[in-house]
């Protein structure tokens, strides 16, 4: 299952259409999505901390040049792919959405919010009303200007209770009837409850602004590339948006996105010159690409994480000492070396290391087998035997389980691996496995908590419901002052650090590759491939 598919289901759940996650939902998701990882970044940005480079137009290889057709190899995709602005599921879908559409705001490479379709978005004093001003002179691909009616229609479409889109759940606090046109370039949004998360909720790539009469069959947006043709599961073609609002961009005349479900085929396409850039270079192939002097590896840190999940409400993990012992028996660096071949950064059982509020005062947790053993002994669980449910739902998941099982032997814990099919994993028992794994994208802390760490969250794998934690998080979301909000968040993180149900051992680097014939792509911390599919500022050298 794909991250955005998980959000799509969440949106459906929030809309009250379904009370529980059914197998059918998930299998439909599986049929749609084959990829892994990827996801958004919001609020204070849950990303790795080193923003690299400024705007890519000032990249290393001199002045940008115009012209050429750029072909990109995307990972996955299938016959149910779409070019819908608000329903991207597979990686090729996401790559296409980035070309065709733009949201009001977006996170730039340094993780600051920058205006895109909007010029500015401002809140009132208690965070209940937000006012957006539309960029002057911005037009859709068909030449019509962007009007407040289009903005309102876009958000009504996203939050449609009958057909909620990927971003609907994020906007659960939005009052659908409270959106108002103030003048020809100004829109007012009313919220049902105060929330500091509004800016992050609207700055996602899947919250694009489309015309009031939007037709996904003939997609129109404000993005750098306009729609040409689309053959689901095979390839899609886009042409340069001549009226694009960013001066001079895009540089290439045509962009072709080609689907490759097979990893080896994608790499071969790059090596043979069939495409200029590919996403998701398998770790095993990195040395092949590095050894080719015509190719470059593009590696980006991210906040994407693949935790082990222990349910805090069932034996033996209901005893906090068992959870602590398991966290102590993990050698995090070895996991990064063996599973990610070193392409990752170490975790401290906390998510969102890039969040400005991230609590980095907590000491890095290291492997301590003696301490782990004595905690298990104190809990009466010497020689503990547990079943770990694993499934190849994303790259490196099953591998991580194998490494964990090996490490557990050192603490006298027998971890039995039960490898199940992805359909079974996300089937009826998903979210009730006592000890399993999952994968998550890059988010801000509060946004992540809303998705997975509250009793009300759609994907609370660990059944985490600590009362103090919940009240700290609720206060933080209502808090307008950033310093005070950070203080609350850090307190909440300390509770998870001490007694949470996740084992978070590391964060995955994204590894992509392109030929040296093109330039302008930089590492990006947003957790999306190829500089967040930033082909608008790529050019042929």
């Amino acid at each position, binding site marked *: 299952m794909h991250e955005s598919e998980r959000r799509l289901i969440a949106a459906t759940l929030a809309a009250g259409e379904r009370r529980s996650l059914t197998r059918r939902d998930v299998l439909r998701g599986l049929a749609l999505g084959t990829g892994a990882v990827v996801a958004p970044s919001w609020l204070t940005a849950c990303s790795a901390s080193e923003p690299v480079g400024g705007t890519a137009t000032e990249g290393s290889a001199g002045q940008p040049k115009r012209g050429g057709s750029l072909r990109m190899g995307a990972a996955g995709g299938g016959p149910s792919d779409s070019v819908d602005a608000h329903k991207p599921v597979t990686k090729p879908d996401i790559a296409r959405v980035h070309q065709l559409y733009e949201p009001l705001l977006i996170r730039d490479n340094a993780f600051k919010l920058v205006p895109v379709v909007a010029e500015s978005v401002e809140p009132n004093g208690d965070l209940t009303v937000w006012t957006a001003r539309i960029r002057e002179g911005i037009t859709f691909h068909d030449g019509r200007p962007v009007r407040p009616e289009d903005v309102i229609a876009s958000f009504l479409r996203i939050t449609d209770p009958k057909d909620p889109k990927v971003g609907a759940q994020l906007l659960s606090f939005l009052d659908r009837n409270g959106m108002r046109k103030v003048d020809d370039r100004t829109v007012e949004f009313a919220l049902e409850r105060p929330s500091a998360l509004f800016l992050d909720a609207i700055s996602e790539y899947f919250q694009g602004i489309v015309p009031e009469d939007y037709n996904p069959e003939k997609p129109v947006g404000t993005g750098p590339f306009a729609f040409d043709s689309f053959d689901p599961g095979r390839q899609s073609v886009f042409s340069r948006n001549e009226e694009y609002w960013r001066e001079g961009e895009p540089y290439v005349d045509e962009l072709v996105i080609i689907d490759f479900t097979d990893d*080896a085929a994608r790499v071969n396409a790059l090596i043979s010159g069939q495409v200029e850039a590919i996403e998701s270079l398998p*770790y095993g192939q990195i040395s092949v690409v590095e050894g080719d002097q015509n190719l470059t590896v593009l590696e980006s840190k991210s906040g994407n994480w693949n935790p082990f999940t222990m349910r805090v409400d069932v034996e033996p993990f209901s005893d906090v000492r068992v959870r602590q012992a398991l966290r102590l028996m993990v050698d995090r660096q070895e996991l990064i070396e063996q599973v990610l071949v070193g392409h990752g950064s170490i975790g401290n059982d906390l998510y969102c290391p890039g969040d400005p509020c991230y609590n980095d005062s907590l000491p890095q947790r290291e492997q301590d087998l003696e301490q782990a053993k004595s905690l298990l002994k104190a809990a009466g669980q010497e020689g503990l035997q547990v079943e770990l449910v694993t499934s190849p739902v994303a790259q490196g998941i099953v591998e991580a389980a194998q*490494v964990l099982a090996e490490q557990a032997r050192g603490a006298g814990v027998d971890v039995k691996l039960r*490898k199940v099919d992805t359909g079974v994993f996300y089937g009826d028992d998903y979210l009730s496995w006592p000890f399993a794994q999952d994968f998550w994208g890059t988010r801000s802390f509060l946004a992540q908590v809303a998705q997975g760490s509250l009793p009300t969250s759609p994907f609370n794998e660990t059944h985490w419901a600590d009362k103090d934690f919940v009240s700290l998080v609720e206060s933080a979301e209502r808090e307008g002052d950033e310093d005070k909000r950070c203080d609350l968040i850090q307190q909440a993180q300390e509770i998870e650090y001490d007694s949470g149900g996740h084992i978070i051992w590391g964060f995955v680097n994204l590894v992509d590759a392109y030929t040296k014939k093109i330039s302008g792509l930089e590492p990006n911390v947003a957790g999306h491939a190829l500089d967040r599919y930033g082909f608008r500022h790529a050019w042929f050298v």
Partner: protein
Amino acid sequence: MSVAEPGPIGNAIERVSGGQAPGLLRRSLAVGRTRAGLMITVLVVAVAVVGPFVAPASETGFVGAPYTPDAAGTVFGTDYLGRDVWSRFLYGGVSVLALSGLCTVIGVGVGLLVALLAGYSRTWVDELLMRTTDVLLAFPAIVLALLFLAVFEPQPATVVATVAAGHAPRVARVMRAAVLDVAGRDYVRAAESMGLRRWPIRLGDLLPNVTGPLMVETGLRLTYSVALVAGLGFLGLSGLEADQADWGLMINENRLGFTVQPWAVLLPVIAIGLLTVGTNLVADGIARAAAGTDREVGG
């Protein structure tokens, strides 16, 4: 003269039930390809059986960075998770051999029973059993296996049952023809006329006289079992523990790094290839020797 009649018939029964198998084995070994096949098979089996005891590193431990062909202290480098390829290879043969052996024994056993029952009943039992086999034969073995494993969670026992179930109807078909051929011979009639019951005749007269085809069939089924079990392992359906070494699984696990670290794929491929060729040569040798036997008897 009538007094002398029982003599030859009695001799025939004695000669036949006196065991044709040892003689056939001896004659098979005289065929060059049997000897070559046997040597190859014994070699691979030895690697699989002795391997775990002589492996330099553990089955699951890490010895270096993933996909490093020249990792320090290793013969064939490391696999996709940084484990020793040579040790994984030495550990990984037992599962393939044990599973295919079991599949063969069970599959051939069941098939033989059906053949003996059907081939020597000449009633509706024969019809019922053979039409059922025809239905089962309509499914290719691998499709049947995938179907079963999609319904039941893959476990070694399920794999054995599935593959054996694929073999049984094929063995039954071939062996029934052999049984049918023998069932019409004089010594069987003689046994019947002596009032022997059906099962003693099946076991005492029919079975010893179909050992030739039976051994060929066993060798052939063993070859198919190896290929099928390794194939299911490749697809990750052999139901073994996720970190257990297995030749079929090794090929799948490491195929993405083939250009960088070919040994992790080549070693199991070579072993499985040799094993199938070896068992096939043995089966072929026995078939030739058995064909010779038939000529002797017929002549």
